């Protein structure tokens, strides 16, 4: 009954994550050696994200009832790990340290309309929460339980959609357009609602085609509900802090004359 992920998948994710974290640390070290500032907190956040991701696919809570265990994996892979990884600003780091030809390609990519469209908050939210509704409100979950490949695919989608959502809503890394605060807050509100409603409805009725125990269903539903709250609160706090800082910059610009008496021009935001 347990839906343990296929061993090769777990091994692949673990290897890729460890390599990714090492590459991140090496790049950050190179940046600092060069004299650029790169807060250590970002290294810590990114590596913590990696650790959560590995824990998520390794499922150390194997003894938990099956749906609750699945939900803990979902929380780690789809919400917490993406948040922490995105807070490490990997794209910014890559843009600053990659070899020049690669950097050119990356810049072109982050400026192109089609490549950045999935990171637009409404699109990312649809991919993320739409995917969740599909998973829990169609027979998809029960089918994927019998197919390791499909199960793997589902988890890859959960991870990527989670990363896209955090990436788009937080808008920390430079891409084509930084969405406004209103849009990001609205998407957080609607996304949070979709998540809360789905979580609560699972309390009453589990995914079709699955037969989880009532206690398991209840616990899993609450894990999803309150876990989602915690991550949503963190996302909102980061967005609010960005707003606070940008208001502060605007205040300083308005209050302090720039060099040569001219007000510091609003050349960059």
């Amino acid at each position: 009954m347990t839906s343990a992920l296929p061993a090769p998948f777990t091994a692949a994710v673990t290897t890729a994550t460890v390599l990714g974290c090492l590459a991140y640390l090496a790049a950050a070290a190179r940046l600092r050696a060069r004299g650029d500032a790169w807060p250590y907190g970002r290294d810590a956040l990114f590596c913590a994200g990696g650790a959560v991701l590995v824990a998520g696919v390794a499922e150390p809570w194997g003894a938990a009832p099956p749906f609750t265990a699945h939900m803990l994996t979902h929380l780690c892979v789809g919400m917490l790990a993406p948040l922490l990884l995105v807070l490490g600003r990997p794209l910014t780091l890559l843009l600053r340290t990659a070899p020049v030809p690669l950097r050119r390609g990356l810049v072109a990519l982050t400026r192109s309309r089609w490549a950045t469209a999935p990171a637009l908050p409404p699109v990312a939210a649809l991919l993320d929460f739409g995917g969740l509704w599909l998973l829990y409100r169609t027979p998809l979950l029960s089918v994927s339980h019998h197919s390791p490949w499909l199960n793997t695919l589902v988890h890859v989608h959960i991870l990527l959609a989670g990363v896209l959502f955090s990436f788009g809503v937080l808008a920390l890394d430079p891409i084509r357009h930084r969405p406004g605060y209103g849009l990001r807050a609205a998407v957080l509100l609607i996304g949070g609602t979709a998540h809360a409603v789905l979580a609560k409805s699972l309390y009453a009725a589990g995914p079709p085609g699955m037969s989880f125990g009532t206690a398991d269903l209840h616990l899993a539903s609450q894990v999803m509900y309150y876990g989602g709250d915690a991550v949503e609160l963190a996302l909102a706090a980061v967005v609010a802090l960005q707003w606070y800082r940008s208001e502060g910059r605007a205040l300083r610009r308005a209050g302090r004359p720039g060099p040569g008496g001219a007000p510091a021009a609003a050349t960059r935001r």
Partner: protein
Amino acid sequence: MRSVLSGVLTGIGTAAFIDETVFHQLLHWHHFYDKSTTDVGLVSDGLFHAGSWLAMVAGLVLYADVRRRGTLVPRKWWGGLFLGLGGFQLYDGTFQHKGLGIHQIRYGVDLAPYDWTWNGIAVLLLVTGALLLVRASRTPRPAAPRTEPRTPTRTR
């Protein structure tokens, strides 16, 4: 105006927090899910729930911003806070509990005294908030030194 808005948002967030911790988690009076809940009720509840968290964050950051600008009017903020607290509770107690039947305050008891107390307190909170705001707008300005924006350049 931002003082009021910040107060209202913080009030909504605080009321939601108290509701969740005291009545759901500590007392177990409210239920996580009531089997008779309708789909509309569930959506309204989810929206309300997500919204109250966002209101808390927005209210606090707005408070910090108003303070930084030196334009905080404490009495207006408190007025807003009470409006937010009362507004949350009244909406929750009338529309969500009664109109949509999401859950009730308690189970297995006569609900009437609980409902009257719950909504009565909500109305009291709203009236307090309104009175504070009226008083704040009647006094033309708070004490003199507050009128001058507190050196925005000082920040950092």
